[in-house]
């Protein structure tokens, strides 16, 4: 049986890849996808701990995380579409002004 620490190491690696992607990419959609990667890393950690404690609570939390992620993606992509219609660009550096 693989030690549980290896799974947690994978989760931390995924989380840091997501965090690095969020910081270095300027395309709004790719930034959003990095956020999804971070959420999935957290999901993996929850599932591992649920399996370790043999308590289903961790998997129920994953259920809620998925629901919240779905709601967040819907609203976030609607914002991105509205932003694109206004500014014709999805570069996070070019949408700095809050006026108009």
């Amino acid at each position, binding site marked *: 049986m693989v030690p549980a620490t290896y799974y947690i190491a994978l989760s931390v690696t995924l989380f840091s890849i997501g965090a690095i992607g969020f910081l270095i990419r300027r395309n709004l959609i790719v930034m959003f*996808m990095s956020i999804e990667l971070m959420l999935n890393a957290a999901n993996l950690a929850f599932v591992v701990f649920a399996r370790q404690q043999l308590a289903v609570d961790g998997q129920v939390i994953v259920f809620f995380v*998925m629901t919240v992620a779905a709601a967040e993606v819907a609203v976030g992509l609607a914002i991105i579409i509205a932003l694109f219609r206004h500014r014709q660009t999805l570069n996070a550096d070019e949408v700095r002004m809050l006026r108009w």
Partner: protein
Amino acid sequence: MTLLTFIPLAALIVGFALGVILNRHPIRSALCLAVTLFLLAVMFVFLDAHLVAALQIIVYAGAILVLFLFVIMLLNLEADIPQKRRRSMSIAAVAGGVVFAGAVLRPILWAGDTLPGPGWSESAPASFGTAESIGARLFTHFVLPFEVTSVLLLVAVLGAVVLAKKKLG
């Protein structure tokens, strides 16, 4: 799940995750993310989380990512032009990420297999992670977050419809 199956699966997951953040074209990033989510669902099955794995494919890979692909197709996005002037910021971000990962990983990996927990060395009972067990827990202990989540989804649907509407006139 033996080391022989874990190492290739983990390597593939990390590889495709790197593909998400490193690809020039957003649609290739989205497809790399789809493969990452699918492989994570495979890992969930190995961890006896069957319902969560099915939900991962139905909700995450089958709906959320399709929404991403939709938006990329609708906005007809081209490949990103690489920008050179933020090189110092990129290096700082990567360095910060690596330092953070190392700082968290070091005590975990050096601790060996001493994370407490009863269930790791034995196989899970057949009813662990099935729809029945999660449903039982969801509708007894977690019923209040469940109801609040339904309100959250309603708010999200309304918000998305209002935001993406074209203004008339």
